[in-house]
C-alpha cells in the first residue's frame, strides 16, 4: 500500500494568551485558587502563613499524601478505587519498623543503627507494599471482585495486620539513617540545594527545548518564541524560588548546637544554617517525574488511559486489561510503601494510628486535582497540587485557630465544591 499524500498541517488560529502559551486552563485555575488561599491565610495570620518556616513544614507534611495520590490517579483513571491505602501504609510501616528494630539488630545480630539497616528495611517495605498491591490487583482483575469491595476488605485487614505485627505498640526510635527520609531529619543544606536547583533548571529548559525541536522535526505547529521564553522563565523562577524559600528557613540555633555537639564540635558563635531541600521532597519530585513519564510516554500509561476511556476498546485492541489492573495496583502498593517510609521517618517512630484516614485524603487530593471518577482523565501534577491545597487548607485553618470539627467540615465542603466546579468546567469546554 503506497502512501502518497500527506495531511497538511494548518496553523491554528490562536485566540488568546493562554492558548499561545498552550497552558492547561484547568491547571491555571488550580494554581490561582491555591495562590488566593495562601494570600488569604497570610493576611488573616498577619504574615505567619507565608514564612519560609511554614512553607517548609507545609511541604514536608504534603509529601506522604502526595506520593500516594499520584498512584491513586492511575487507579481512578482505570475506573477503580483504592480504599486501603492508609491501612496498607500502616502495614508497610509496621513491617519496616519491626525489620529495623527487631529483625536486623537482634535476629541478624547487627545491633542498632547498623549502616545496612535502612536498606534492608526500605527494601522489605517496598516489596511488601508491591506484593500486597499486586494481590489486590489480581483479585480485582482476574477474580473480577469489584475494587471497592477488595480494598474495603483490605482497609480492615491491613490496618489490623499492622496492629497485630506490633502488638499495637509505638515502635521507635527508628534507625538514624532511615529517619533521614522524613522531614527535618534529612535535608540537603543550602549549597547542595542550590546546585540541585540549578541542575533541575537546566534539565527543565532542555526538556522544553527538545519538545520544540521534536515538533519542528515533523513540521507540527509550535508556540511563538516569546511564549517559549516566558515558559522557560516561569519554570526556572519556580524551581529556583522554591529552593530559595527552603534555604531561607534556618535551622533553629539550639538544634544546630545539638548537631555540632553530636559531632563533638563546638558551634561557632552567630552561625546560621538553612535547611535546604528535604530528602522527602526530592522523593516526591522523583515520583512525580517518573509517574508523569509513565503516564504520557510509555505504553503502560497509554493503556491505562485507553482502558479508562473505553475498557472494551482496549480489550479489543489486544490490551491485556486484567494484567494491567494488577500492574496499576502494584504501583499503588509500591507508592504506599514509599509513603510509609516518609511518614514513619518524619514521625521518627511507627505508631499504631499511622496513615489513619489517609485513604480519604488521597482520593480527595486526586479528585480535587481533576481526576474523573468516571475514568480516563487525570494528571499527576493535578493530584499533587490537590494534596498541597488540602494540606494548606488544613494547616492554615489550624493556624487561624478554627476549631477542629470546623476544619473537617470545611475540607469536606471544599471537596464537593471542587468536583462541582470541575463538572461545570467540563460542560463549558465540551469535554466529557
Amino acid at each position: 500500500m503506497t502512501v502518497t499524500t500527506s495531511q497538511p498541517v494548518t496553523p491554528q488560529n490562536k485566540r488568546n494568551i493562554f492558548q499561545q502559551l498552550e497552558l492547561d486552563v484547568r491547571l491555571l485555575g488550580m494554581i490561582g485558587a491555591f495562590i488566593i488561599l495562601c494570600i488569604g491565610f497570610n493576611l488573616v495570620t498577619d504574615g505567619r502563613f507565608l514564612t519560609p518556616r511554614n512553607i517548609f513544614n507545609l511541604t514536608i507534611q504534603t509529601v506522604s499524601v502526595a506520593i500516594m495520590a499520584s498512584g491513586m490517579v492511575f487507579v481512578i483513571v482505570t475506573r477503580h478505587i483504592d480504599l486501603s491505602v492508609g491501612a496498607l501504609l500502616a502495614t508497610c510501616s509496621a513491617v519496616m519498623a519491626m525489620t529495623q528494630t527487631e529483625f536486623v539488630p537482634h535476629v541478624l545480630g547487627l545491633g542498632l543503627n547498623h549502616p545496612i539497616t535502612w536498606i534492608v528495611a526500605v527494601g522489605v517495605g517496598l516489596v511488601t507494599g508491591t506484593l500486597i498491591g499486586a494481590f489486590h490487583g489480581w483479585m480485582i482483575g482476574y477474580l473480577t471482585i469489584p475494587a471497592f469491595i477488595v480494598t474495603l476488605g483490605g482497609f480492615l485487614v491491613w490496618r489490623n495486620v499492622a496492629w497485630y505485627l506490633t502488638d499495637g505498640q509505638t515502635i521507635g526510635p527508628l534507625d538514624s539513617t532511615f529517619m533521614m527520609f522524613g522531614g527535618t531529619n534529612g535535608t540537603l543544606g543550602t549549597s547542595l540545594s542550590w546546585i540541585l536547583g540549578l541542575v533541575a533548571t537546566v534539565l527543565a529548559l532542555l526538556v522544553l527545548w527538545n519538545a520544540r525541536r521534536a515538533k519542528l522535526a515533523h513540521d507540527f505547529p509550535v508556540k511563538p518564541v516569546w511564549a517559549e521564553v516566558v515558559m522557560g522563565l516561569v519554570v526556572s523562577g519556580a524551581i529556583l524560588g522554591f529552593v530559595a524559600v527552603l534555604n531561607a528557613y534556618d535551622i533553629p540555633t539550639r538544634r544546630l548546637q545539638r548537631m555540632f555537639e553530636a559531632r563533638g564540635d563546638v558551634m561557632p558563635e552567630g552561625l546560621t544554617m538553612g535547611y535546604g531541600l528535604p530528602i522527602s521532597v526530592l522523593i516526591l519530585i522523583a515520583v512525580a517525574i517518573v509517574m508523569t513519564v509513565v503516564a504520557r510516554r510509555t505504553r503502560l500509561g497509554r493503556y491505562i488511559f485507553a482502558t479508562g476511556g473505553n475498557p472494551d476498546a482496549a480489550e479489543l485492541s489486544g490490551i491485556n486489561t486484567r494484567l494491567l489492573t494488577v500492574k496499576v495496583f502494584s504501583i499503588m502498593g509500591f507508592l504506599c510503601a514509599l509513603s510509609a517510609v516518609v511518614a514513619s521517618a518524619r514521625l521518627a517512630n511507627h505508631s499504631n494510628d499511622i496513615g489513619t484516614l489517609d485513604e480519604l485524603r488521597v482520593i480527595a487530593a486526586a479528585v480535587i486535582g481533576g481526576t474523573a471518577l468516571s475514568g480516563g482523565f487525570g494528571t499527576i501534577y493535578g493530584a499533587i497540587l490537590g494534596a498541597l491545597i488540602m494540606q494548606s487548607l488544613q494547616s492554615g485553618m489550624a493556624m487561624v485557630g478554627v476549631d477542629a470539627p470546623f476544619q473537617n467540615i470545611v475540607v469536606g465542603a471544599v471537596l464537593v465544591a471542587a468536583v462541582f466546579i470541575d463538572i461545570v468546567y467540563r460542560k463549558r469546554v465540551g469535554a466529557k
Partner: protein
Amino acid sequence: MTTPKELRAQGATPMVAMDDISVSFGGIKAVDRVSVDLHPGEVVGLLGHNGAGKSTLIKVLSGAYQMDSGEIRINGDKVEITNPRDARSHNIETIYQTLALADNLDAASNLFLGREIVTSTGLVNDAAMEAECRKIMGRLNPNFRKFNEPVSALSGGQRQSVAIARAVYFNARILIMDEPTAALGPHETQMVAELIQQLKAQGIGIFLIDHDVHAVMQLCDRASVMKNGQLVGTVDIEDVTDDDLLSMIILGKKPGEAAA
C-alpha cells in the same frame, strides 16, 4: 488477475474458512453449525435480523468470543484464535459497530492503540505516530483536521475514518466490517463504499455485516444470510434480487424454495 468468482470455480483454497461453527450463551445457541468462507479480493455480506447471530459469528473470527465447536482455517491451515491479539497476528482486522475507540485519546493514539511506535528508549513516539496518522488520514479522509483533540470531539464519520484507518494501516489481509455505515451520513457512506472498492482491488477479503440489503447488493460479491443462529444460505449477488435477499432474511427460505 483472477476474480474471486473464478477462484471459487477453480476450487481454490479460501483465505478464510469458518467451518461448522457453534456458539452458545447459557443454553441459547447464538450460532448453530454455520459455515462461511472468503476469498482474496472478495466482499461477503452477512445479513440477518438483529439477534440472527451474525455479529457473534464474526466475533469468533476477531477473537472477541470463543466458539464451542467448529474450525477456522486461514489459507487452508487450521488456526486457534482465542483473543484479539491472535486475530491480529493473522492479519485479521475488525471495524466494530460500536466503534471501538478510546474517547479520551486523540486519533493517533487510537490508530496505534496496542501497537505503538516506540523510540529506541522504549518510550512512545507521539510525534512519529501523529505524522503517520496524518499520512493515512490524508488518503482516507482529506478533510480530517482534528489531530490533537480527543476522538470524543469528532463527528460519526470522522470517528469511522479513524476506525477504518486503524484496520488499513496495519496491512490487514482479512477485514471485518460490522455495520460500517450505520452512524454515517450519505456523503460519508459513499466514502466508505469507495474505500471498500479500493481495498478489494488490493486483494483484501472483507466480511461486511449489514442490515441494509441495498448496501449489500451494491458492495458485495456474495451474501450469507442467517436467521435464528442458523445459516439460511449463501448466494451470489449476481444471481439474486433485493426481494430474494429479503425473503431469505424474513422467511428464512432460499430463492429456489421461495419460488416453489
